């Protein structure tokens, strides 16, 4: 029976002691311990999330770099292609121009030659006419007395001759 009848003394000491211990431990042990645990856990969590963030940033940077590189490569290809095209077109234009110029010069030369030829022929014609007249005059001076009749005759002959 004594076992299940609580004694006033122990009830008193237990209450007082337990409450004091609860207060002391709560204030000077559990509070700093819980705070330290919480702080450490949050610092670990922060460190982990920071590492994760850094990793993501690194990945983003790498991806950016790769993108930049790819862009640069594309740009280079484009520039090269453009340069080749430009070169080709310059060469082409130059060739065309040269051809044109050549053709023009040829035409000019031909024209000049034609003109010269025509001039030369006219001169030859005139000279031939003058010579023929001269020769005919000399011949006819002897045979014809009337130089007017002789001139008319020569003129008639000359217009009868067609050159070319």
């Amino acid at each position, binding site marked *: 029976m*004594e*076992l*299940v*009848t*609580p*004694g*006033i*003394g*122990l*009830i*008193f*000491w*237990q*209450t007082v*002691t*337990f409450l*004091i*211990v*609860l207060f*002391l*431990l*709560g204030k*000077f*042990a*559990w*509070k*700093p*311990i*819980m*705070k*330290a*645990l919480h*702080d*450490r856990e949050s*610092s670990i969590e922060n460190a982990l999330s920071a590492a994760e963030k850094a990793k993501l940033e690194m990945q983003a940077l790498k991806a950016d770099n790769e993108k930049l590189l790819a862009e640069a490569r594309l740009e280079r290809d484009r520039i090269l292609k453009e340069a080749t095209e430009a070169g080709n077109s310059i060469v082409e234009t130059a060739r065309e121009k040269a051809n044109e110029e050549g053709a023009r010069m040829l035409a000019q030369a031909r024209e000049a030659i034609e003109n010269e030829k025509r001039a030369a022929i006219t001169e030859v014609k005139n000279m031939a006419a003058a010579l023929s007249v001269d020769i005919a005059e000399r011949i006819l001076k002897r045979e014809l007395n009337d130089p007017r009749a002789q001139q008319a005759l020569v003129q008639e002959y000359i217009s009868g001759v067609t050159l070319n």
Partner: protein
Amino acid sequence: MKRLFVLLFSFLTISAFAEAPVEGGEFQPGEMITHHIADDYIWHFADGATVYLPVILLDNGQLNVFSSHHFYDENHETVPYNGYVLEHGRIYRASQEGEPLEEHAGLYDFSITKNVASMFVSVALLLIIFFVIASRYKNNPGKAPKGIQSFFEPIIIFVRDEIAKANIGPKYERYMPYLLTVFFFIWFNNLLGLMPGGANLTGNIAVTLILALLTLIITLFSGNKNYWGHIFATPGVPTWLAPIMIPVELIGIFTKPFSLMVRLFANITAGHIIILSLFSLIFIFRSIAVGPLSVAFATFMNFLELFVALLQAYIFTLLSAMYFGGAVEEHDHSEEHH
């Protein structure tokens, strides 16, 4: 190795036999066991190593403080002192002839008994250990725990995460000091009770009564609208049942801490009784041959009790946390349960 154990057990048995208090007459196992698990005014570690604890009596408003040494004469027989006498582990007013008087109104016994002294030892241990640990945390913030700190840290985290957080919910923080104190108080005292010469503190109903009362008081003070609503108007129960339901729920408030009180008291006391009974077998059979067997069983029980010491601390803390959790539970959550 096995032979060594047997030898050791026999030795222990013989020495226990030598110390056995079988002077004059039959050995009374019941009396011996009751004496061992009950409170006492002296702390008897071994023959010749006895601490006489102070007796503090409040007699009709008058305070009497003296050593319990005065109750014993040279032959360790009780004698009346100062008008009081010790009889069957209790102090009574003494008559002229030194006989205990039945009438003891106005006499209050606040003595530092064996249990109280043992509690002071455990409290000193608790304070020293956890102050040291707290200072470690303060001095090395953010560092990994070391030494004693790393032994207790997982336990503290277990109490926080598995007991408090799991059962109370988001408001667990304010119950942590109580839960941790109760856990370590019970555990330390359970273990000290298993030490040779230790007091059966957590197996004393006064101690478990106060612990259970504190849990009840905290539960009642943290009860929110839902908690009281559940008691006075249980959801889903017709109103005409209220005359039955309200008393049942009110009784329920008190049966919870009552079970806490009895569970801890009974478990610890039962363990002590079993171990003491096993030892008593030796004296009942009056045979050394029973000794090794008895000691082997008692050793096994002691290991079991080491586990029970932790288990009961855990159960008390867990159930307290569950009661707090029930008191602070939010409405939508409670709907899921019922």
